[in-house]
């Protein structure tokens, strides 16, 4: 829920409640005042009649109107004292039912007792109350509406800079060339936020580029000694005086240096992938790359007696040709490496997805670990332990979700091609 919506919800609820309570109180008070007014008029009538009777010793002539009328009744049991009541009665003057306020009081002229009823229609009072209430309610409505519009327009505009800040943070990468530079805002809170974020990203940026430079330099510095060792081995090999023992030693050195070179190359590639130094906007025929890579691996597949089933449909993607090659190669190499002799590999490619599955030996793999760096399924595994980490990184750059699944004694890796990359 948005802050504004949450605030509005509470705000409007409270406002309506207060207005309702106020309205009820207002109604009660208004009614009380108007009724007292009405009763005063009735009492005034009573005093007028009593005054007339005291002076003239006879009943006055009664002038009845639509709104007010007086009935006089001779009775042996007059009420003990005057009282007032309201009741729904038939008004003969108007020919309809309506609320009528009545003052009933006793009157004695000489020996005769009378009950006198002064009646007055409540209609006017009710009408007035209704109008006033209606007015108040429409006022409340207007105030709420005005509030709503003001909130929407003004507050939305105020929050716009907040959303702009959020949008900048979302697209910010530590690897981007510049730290965030968010503008000052009229609203103090947003200004504080922006300044804080600017400082934070500047720090991150600085730390990141220091680390990056270090990694790059370290990698390049390492490359030269590796190159020297390899060249020295090549020269040493030409020496004619080898005996079997030292040849074995040299072979060990060579294999290690090869592993080191490979490891180093993979780490450099990972660093470059993380720096987002590749742009995936080239049109490539993924199916061709896949076919080529499969052809390259034919020897290997034959020697391991692996059966490869493929279902490859023409697939054109927006990608990076070099990355696509690495992706396919790493995935295939990995799968071939862990397929037992005489096992089976299925390769499926369509414009929507790319999937590779192979015979599993020891049950499901740990989904959370297989894409981690230096995770090896067994201690004596030959790879660098970086192959799948690189695959994962490439997928994340291209925006292709990659998934591992274990079913029917098969390891299955599936890469979904996102819509933007389809053509």
């Amino acid at each position, binding site marked *: 829920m948005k802050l504004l919506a949450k605030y509005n919800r509470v705000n409007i609820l409270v406002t309506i409640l207060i207005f309702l309570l106020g309205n009820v109180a207002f109604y009660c008070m208004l009614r009380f005042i108007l009724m007292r007014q009405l009763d005063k008029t009735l009492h005034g009538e009573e005093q007028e009649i009593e005054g007339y009777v005291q002076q003239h010793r006879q009943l006055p002539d009664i002038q009845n109107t639509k709104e007010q009328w007086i009935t006089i009744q001779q009775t042996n049991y007059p009420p003990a004292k005057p009282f007032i009541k309201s009741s729904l009665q038939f008004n003969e003057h108007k020919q309809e039912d309506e609320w009528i306020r009545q003052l009933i009081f006793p009157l004695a002229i000489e020996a005769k007792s009378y009950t006198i009823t002064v009646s007055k229609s409540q209609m006017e009072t009710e009408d007035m109350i209704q109008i006033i209430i209606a007015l108040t309610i429409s006022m409340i409505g207007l105030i709420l509406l005005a509030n709503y519009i003001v909130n929407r327009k003004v507050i939305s505009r105020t929050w716009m800079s907040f959303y702009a800040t959020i949008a900048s943070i979302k697209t910010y990468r530590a690897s981007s060339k510049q730290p965030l530079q968010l503008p000052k805002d009229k609203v103090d809170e947003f200004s504080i936020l922006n300044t804080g974020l600017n400082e934070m990203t500047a720090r991150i940026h600085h730390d990141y580029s220091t680390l990056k430079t270090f990694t790059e330099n370290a990698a*390049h510095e390492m*490359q*030269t000694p*590796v*190159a*020297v*060792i*390899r*060249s*020295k*081995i*090549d*020269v040493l*090999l*030409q020496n004619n005086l*080898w*005996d*079997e023992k030292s*040849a*074995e030693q*040299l*072979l060990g050195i*060579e*294999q290690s*240096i*090869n*592993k080191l*070179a*490979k490891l180093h*190359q993979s780490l*450099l590639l990972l660093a*470059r992938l993380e720096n987002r*130094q590749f742009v995936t906007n080239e049109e490539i025929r993924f199916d061709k790359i896949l076919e080529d890579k499969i052809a*390259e691996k034919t*020897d*290997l597949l034959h*020697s*391991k007696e692996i059966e490869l089933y493929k279902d490859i449909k023409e697939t054109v993607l927006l990608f990076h040709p*070099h990355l696509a090659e690495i992706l396919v*190669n790493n995935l295939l*190499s990995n799968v071939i*490496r862990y397929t037992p002799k005489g096992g089976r590999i299925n390769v499926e490619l369509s414009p929507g997805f790319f999937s590779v599955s192979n015979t599993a030996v020891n049950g499901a793999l740990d989904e959370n670990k297989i894409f981690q760096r230096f995770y090896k399924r067994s201690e004596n595994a*030959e*790879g660098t332990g970086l192959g799948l980490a690189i695959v994962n990184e490439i997928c994340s750059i291209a925006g292709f979700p990659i998934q591992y699944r274990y079913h029917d004694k098969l390891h299955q890796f599936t890469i979904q091609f996102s819509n933007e990359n389809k053509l």
Partner: protein
Amino acid sequence: MKILIIEDELSLNTSITQYLSSAYVCESVYTYKDALDKIDRYDYDCIVLDIMLPDGSGLKLLEYLKADRKTDGVIIVSAKDSLDDKLHGLKLGADDYLTKPFHLSELSMRVEAIIRRRNMNGHSTIIAGNLVMEMHEKSAVINGKSLELTQKEFQLLLYFAVNKNKVLSKNAIAQHLWGDDMDFAENYDFIYTHIKNIRRKMMQAGGEDCIRSLYGMGYKLQVK
């Protein structure tokens, strides 16, 4: 054939010079300044160029060479293996680009290819003893008899022929044939199979068995 090796790392420069000296006349320099001096004064068939020199960029040297209309072939050897650097180097007129670390036999192969492209005017034969390899037709002839080789076998034999009398480690061979991508021990079995086949075919054609195996380290093509 004259080759100039421009590489600031003394050890590497020595190794390259030592290795290539058996086939070419090699001169080596370690700095930008010396390199410029040599380029100005002499012509070379091929220049092995390191991009990162202490007193200047190898790419500048390359630009200078091309601006001066020198016909020297150039192969860049660099610690940088990013695609951009590679494309940039080739765009500036380099003939090839090799990323460190590399096998000397691979460098020798590339240098040979550059020289062949530049000097032979389309002629492209490689001769190693009785063996004659024709690049265009991808044919190999021994003692006048042609060999029926598969594509991989031809590639492998060519590698041996260019690096004749040199021991090639199994790893160098594997990298040459299958690229960096493959790093399985299984590769070594393929190499053994391919070499066995080549030997058999050469002997069937009446040639002598001139591929030697050296204590599991590697193989070499021995010719007089």
